[in-house]
């Protein structure tokens, strides 16, 4: 970091939060922001620093002085003037995201000491850091990735008597380690690129994915939907995904393993209760979600690892079974490429993996079967790095569940106390591809961006306890593409149909919040941030296009889809990669199209089906 950015970024942070020296917690935000940026990929870091320098230059041009030299009042006026430019507003909003993340954590730390929870004992895992793993080893099957798909594949293969090694890029985090650290500290360690994975397009999408033993299941909300029947039918009949046959049984098995049950109302939290009451008043179908968190204590920290061990992420449910059956897990091990024997009779055959350790050294594991479960964003790149990316469909067909958030301000406190992070589903519009879920993330970690800058933003932060947040995700057309071989490079061109769904979802959520008694609704749209009633909201949104929205995306799927059409599907109907023997695809990328619901169960059942069928054939 050069000296200019070193001073520009803290000054900009102070300006954003209207730091006038009266609030203690604001002082610690720049340091925490720096920690967060250090964990981000270089491109994101450079963009943030560049934006900070640009604002500094703007200050110099307007006032003849740099941001650091301005008094708090002057800084705030300058930023307000900048925010008045409609073109600059989205940039400021993007800059605000990491600032809010850091600020939320600092504020929380100043308000309450991190609760020292009794650490639960996790079921034992056979984890070995890559530094302690031998440079040369062999296995009957290597599973790349330990998320929902990888864990299930590993368990299935290990139970069949194979020597299985699971290779995971992330670290193993125990429940005790979650309980002892702040959410932001966990956030930077648990997410790929510190959560700053961007899909480029109009609008750009933030696609956070997990990176740890357990994959994204460590940081998801625990919502467990079965794959809808019409989706299964589509996969089977239109796409020719043979593994979808009998997927119902595998879904049952996945549910049993994760101990999925409907969330009891006792720790649901005010956010969920408001969503339920709003839906009841509107006569909309709604109810608590089915989750994999028996005995949830309402910590509301699912997205940074459950600190009580209630959420049955796969490292607590599936991987212990796999390890009990003999599977071993190598952590901090990034698979650089699959080893491929190109001179085998019948065509190329995978023969293992080349893995790099954090210190740059390498290890290799030879294995006649490689199960690729590196996630829908990682799998295509890994196959390309391995020279197996020749299929034109690889990396295409990316569905991501574009999502937006809307908040409602209530007269009574909403936050504080026990709450389930994602508690209630409103399924009124689900048939139209819109699923509304009441979602209350830890401070700053919501995909909802608070409006305003300066003192207004700080006041909004101080008032977050009165905000209820709803999120809506839409079943999208496969409009995205994973590019390149290294880093995460995504393009996503939101389909007009899906853009319409997002705008419709925004209205529906506003309506729901007003029905629940919200005093005002915060739209998350920079230039039209607040509405006092439904009519005002409709008027505001009339002027809003989808590019104005702050869109997040979750649940990437479909980038190495299985299907009968050889020209379109990189994997065959049973999930085996076309063009090479001995490679199974067993993660979200194998799903032929958007599952239209939170996909953990679908991915687990598909991985089970793919590996089961492979075992049956051999």
């Amino acid at each position: 970091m050069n000296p200019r950015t070193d001073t520009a970024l803290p000054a900009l942070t102070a300006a954003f939060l209207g730091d006038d020296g009266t609030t203690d917690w604001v002082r610690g935000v720049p340091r925490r922001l720096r920690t967060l940026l250090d964990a981000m990929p270089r491109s994101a870091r450079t963009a943030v620093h560049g934006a900070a320098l640009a604002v500094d230059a703007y200050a110099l041009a307007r006032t003849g002085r740099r941001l650091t030299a301005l008094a708090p009042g002057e800084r705030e006026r300058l930023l307000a003037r900048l925010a008045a430019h409609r073109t600059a507003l989205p940039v400021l909003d993007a800059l605000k995201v990491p600032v809010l993340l850091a600020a939320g954590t600092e504020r929380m730390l100043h308000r309450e000491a991190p609760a020292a929870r009794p650490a639960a004992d996790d079921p034992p895992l056979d984890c070995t850091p890559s530094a302690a793993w031998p440079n040369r080893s062999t296995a009957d099957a290597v599973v790349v990735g330990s998320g929902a798909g990888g864990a299930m594949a590993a368990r299935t293969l290990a139970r069949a008597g194979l020597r299985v090694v699971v290779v995971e890029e992330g670290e193993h985090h125990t429940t005790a380690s979650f309980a002892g650290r702040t959410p932001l500290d966990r956030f930077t360690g648990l997410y790929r690129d510190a959560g700053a994975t961007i899909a480029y397009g109009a609008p750009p999408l933030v696609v956070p994915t997990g990176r740890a033993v357990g994959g994204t299941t460590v940081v998801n909300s625990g919502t467990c939907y079965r794959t809808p029947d019409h989706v299964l039918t589509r996969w089977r009949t239109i796409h020719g995904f043979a593994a979808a046959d009998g997927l119902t049984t595998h879904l049952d098995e996945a549910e049993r393993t994760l101990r999925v049950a409907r969330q009891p109302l006792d720790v649901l939290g005010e956010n969920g209760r408001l969503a339920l009451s709003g839906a009841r008043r509107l006569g909309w179908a709604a109810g608590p979600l089915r989750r994999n968190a028996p005995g949830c204590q309402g910590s509301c920290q699912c997205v940074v690892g459950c600190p009580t061990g209630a959420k049955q992420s796969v490292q607590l449910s599936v991987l212990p079974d796999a390890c009990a059956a003999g599977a071993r897990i190598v952590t901090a091990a990034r698979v650089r490429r699959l080893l491929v024997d190109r001179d085998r009779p019948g065509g190329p055959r995978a023969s293992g993996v080349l893995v790099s350790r954090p210190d740059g050294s390498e290890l290799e594991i030879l294995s006649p079967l490689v199960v690729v479960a590196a996630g829908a964003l990682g799998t295509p790149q890994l196959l390309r790095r391995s020279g197996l990316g020749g299929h034109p469909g690889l990396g295409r067909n990316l569905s991501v569940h574009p999502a937006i958030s809307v908040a409602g301000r209530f007269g009574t406190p909403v936050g504080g106390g026990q709450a389930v992070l994602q508690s209630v589903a409103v399924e009124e519009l689900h048939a139209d591809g819109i699923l509304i879920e009441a979602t209350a993330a830890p401070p700053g970690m919501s995909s909802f961006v608070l409006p305003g800058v300066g003192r207004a933003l700080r006041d909004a932060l101080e008032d977050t306890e009165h905000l209820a947040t709803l999120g809506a995700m839409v079943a999208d057309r496969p409009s995205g593409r994973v590019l390149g071989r290294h880093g995460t490079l995504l393009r996503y061109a939101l389909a007009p149909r899906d853009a319409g769904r997002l705008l419709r979802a925004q209205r529906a959520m506003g309506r729901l919040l007003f029905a629940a008694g919200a005093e005002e609704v915060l739209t998350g749209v920079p230039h039209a941030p607040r509405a006092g009633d439904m009519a005002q909201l409709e008027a505001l949104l009339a002027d809003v296009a989808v590019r104005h929205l702050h869109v997040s995306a979750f649940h990437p799927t479909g980038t190495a889809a299985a299907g009968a059409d050889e020209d379109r599907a990189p994997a065959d109907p049973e999930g085996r990669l076309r063009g090479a023997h001995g490679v199974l695809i067993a993660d979200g990328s194998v799903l032929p199209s958007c599952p239209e619901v939170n996909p953990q169960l679908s991915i687990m059942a598909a991985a089970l089906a793919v590996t089961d069928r492979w075992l049956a054939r051999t």
Partner: protein
Amino acid sequence: MSARGTEFRETLLGRVRLDGEDRERPVRLDLVARAGTVVLPHRTTRARLTGRVRIAGRADDAEAVGELEISPLARRRIRYRITFTLEGRRLELDGWKSLSPARPVTSMTVLPYSLHEDGRPAGQGTLRFPLGTGLLPFVASFRFPRTSAHDPGRDLAARWDGRPGRTEVWYTTLTDPATGTGVWLHHEVVAPTDGSAAYAHGWAALFPQDGPVRHARFGPVPATGGTDGFTAGDVRVAPGALSGSAGPLTWSLTETPQGPPVRTFPRWSWRHPWLPASHMLPASRCRYTGTVRHGDGEELRLDGAFGASARIYGHGNAARWAWLHADLGGGDVLEIVAAVSTRPGLDRLPPLVFLRLLRGGRTWPGRAERSAVGWAGAGRFTADLALPRWRVTGRAGLRRIRVTVTQPEERTLALDYTDPDGSAAVCRNSESADAEIHLERWWGRWRPEAHWRLAGTAHAEVGER
């Protein structure tokens, strides 16, 4: 399967950390790799490994065995799996060099490995190929020996393709160990140079130890050609069987090859008949079982008699020649052809000696050309062709040989040969000749290495015009 295999030696040095120990120990591997095919870099070749594994203070196993997978380009991997003994435990070393174009030297010389005992980890370490001291011996150790996958029957198939001016011969000589009687069966196809019809003929001869030599001719009959051996009337040579009759002689023998082929002349000369003629043995020696009858009721019953069949294909007989087939026992064989060509120019040269000594599974001299032409004439083997005694001497590498063949007149049969061009030659043949062979090796001075004396069991002939 290719006709040649690959052999090489490799020494690897490195360290190992055995499970349960807190320090690393030096390791040394001295390996010999033998593959059944020629190692090609773009293919995958499997080789057997034998050698010695030493772990300082813990193991020294000279009986280590294993497998090597050599695939530098196709799989970018050279994998070693070696089983050895460490204090009574059987350990398996499993490791591979992983070849990277970005780091060619390092990746070709560094071999990380793991040790396993019954599938459980027992240690790990890294071996390195010592480039400074190991490269030259490694490269120099490469050999591409012929593999044993040879079908003697294939060499019995007729070579003559209908062209005029060619002679093709199948002849078999053997000695009955019970009576000491020598047998000579000669089968010949001659395609005259003038284009007249080719004919097949031959003869059979018996060389009793204590009686006169008896022989009889068969044919000539029109040559048919294109068979898997020789056919002329009831006379047949086929893989594994010889039968026929000539005058009072009748024979029916089975032939069982017992050794590798002997290329008396350079191998290429048999495949591409550019020399005036070429000679080879489909098998260095064979066992013969069956009977050879003479019309007067005499019957020779053979049961595993040793001998050999030979093949000649060319333009005709030499101007002068001598031939020896000596079965030295224990599978060792000496085959000599010394000849002066009839071609203008070549006929002015001294006899070219083609000498092949098969001993202990190896052939000396290494190349067939070596004894005939030496190094541009220098160091070639010499022959003194005369009767009743002829000699061949020569030196190649650190060995020299002296062969003396005696063909007593009473045990020698003189026969007239006719070349395709109609010229005649006389061949004096004995299947009960004597031979004395001295082999010496240089070690500070010439020291005797081996000495063979064959009394009446050598097969020899001398031809002249």
